[in-house]
């Protein structure tokens, strides 16, 4: 008797659990994000504008990196996410020849439409590129302001970066080849931790995201990519072409964001979040500041 009760309980638990989890409504736009501050913020910005301007509801889902987001979009586990032209160009399509902002955008848009049936909507406005940073003290001491100038000192330096940079074509392997640079040690870690690690001297150089607010806050100095190794990384929402055609309201809402935000804007808002602000509140504030919502 007790065993029957137990089995019944288990079945009920499972059914309830599965019903709770399998709620795939039609008018829900699932927005993917990568796992760092700016992506959390961008995801919420897309979510807020869609919910404000259309009847759709949204769900923001975090993934552990670029390729996971991309896989999720390809397999329709999400409807859209914000991708960088440079990331698509250098990491996904593995191209190395550096093009300008518009050429990169046109290239990835055509390639993605042809290969994956995924289209690129309008760029949101800012370029968030990888950039090498050192502390102000290091920059003064060694008198360096470009990556080439860092090369002779790099052999004694510990470098910190995110888990993707280590293997991407537009990341460490390409960087090493382009500049002939080598580090004493390479430490991949959660991207958000690299800034404090650099400030506190746990690492000597890090791979920053250029729009991170902590570069200014922690008094870090960016080294110029003088050999122009990194492609332009302009961000735009990407989604399946079929989905875009079937859901013009979503596309129109996202179009409102075209060119609205600059690097300085994003540094400002990213910092607000990194200093403890709620991501959705900051996203809402950002849209209000640009007059996009009331």
């Amino acid at each position, binding site marked *: 008797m007790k065993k029957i009760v137990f089995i019944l309980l288990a079945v009920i638990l499972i059914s309830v*659990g599965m019903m709770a989890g399998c709620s795939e409504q039609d008018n829900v736009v699932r927005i993917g994000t990568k796992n760092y501050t700016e992506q959390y913020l961008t995801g919420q910005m897309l979510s807020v504008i869609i919910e404000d301007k259309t009847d759709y509801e949204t769900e923001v889902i975090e993934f552990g990196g670029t390729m996971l987001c991309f896989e999720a979009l390809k397999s329709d586990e999400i409807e859209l996410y914000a991708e960088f032209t440079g990331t698509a160009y250098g990491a996904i399509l593995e191209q190395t020849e550096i093009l300008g902002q518009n050429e990169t955008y046109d290239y990835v848009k055509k390639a993605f439409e042809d290969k994956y049936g995924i289209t690129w909507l309008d760029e949101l406005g800012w370029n968030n590129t990888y950039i090498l940073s050192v502390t102000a003290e290091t920059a003064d001491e060694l008198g360096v302001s470009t990556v080439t100038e860092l090369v002779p000192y790099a052999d004694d330096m510990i470098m910190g970066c995110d888990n993707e940079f280590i293997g991407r074509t537009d990341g460490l392997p390409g960087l090493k080849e382009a500049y002939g640079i080598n580090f004493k040690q390479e430490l991949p870690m959660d991207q*958000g*931790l690299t800034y404090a690690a650099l400030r506190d001297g746990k690492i000597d150089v890090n791979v920053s995201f250029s729009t991170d607010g902590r570069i200014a806050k922690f008094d870090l100095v960016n080294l110029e990519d003088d050999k122009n190794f990194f492609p332009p990384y302009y961000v735009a929402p990407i989604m399946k072409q079929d989905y875009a055609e079937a859901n013009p309201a979503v596309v129109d809402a996202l179009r409102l964001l075209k060119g609205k935000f600059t690097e300085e804007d994003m540094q400002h808002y990213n910092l607000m979040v990194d200093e403890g602000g709620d991501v959705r509140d900051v996203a809402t504030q950002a849209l209000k500041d640009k007059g996009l919502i009331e």
Partner: protein
Amino acid sequence: MIEYISGNWEQILSRAGEHVYLAFTAVGLACLVGIPVGLLINRNKRIANAVMGVANILQTVPSLAMFALLIPLVGIRDKNAIVALFLYALLPIIKNTYIGINNVEPSVIEAAKGMGMSRMQILYMVQTPLAVPVIMGGVRIATVTGIGIATIATLIGAGGLGTLIYQGIGMMNYPMMLSGAIVAALLALLIDFILELLEKKMTSRGIAIK
């Protein structure tokens, strides 16, 4: 810290809900599969060893690796997480079911045979009730471990309390990080306590240790 929790209790609750959904579905399925398997392999020692060997190997795969290995097979998000957690829950449940059944005193089984019970009747009416404490012990271990491993599921888009921990780390937001961690631990304690009560209820009075 308190301000963070009071200000964000909806989000924390929602994440806890996702977390419970992942862990419970997985452990529930593991019970549905594991307990019957544990009962059935009782007959043949060699099969029993083979089955527990497989479950053992699954146990040794590090959780992050398990999620990764499952991606080509089941994709990502909650499906992936539930399958992974299910695989981890199998060993404690199968093993404890097997041990529990096996450890029933031979004299009791003799008595049952003497009363004319068939093999199946002995299994369901004598051995299983006596094995309940041990089986429940396995379920408790599986559930608590499952709640712990589910914190990593956020990386493959399955949500849960790990999202608070992980986002907290990335934004160096200690209240957020800790609220995720502490709630996960509290959840494990709470579930363990509830399961302990359930175990006591299900153990027939005759064998309850006073």
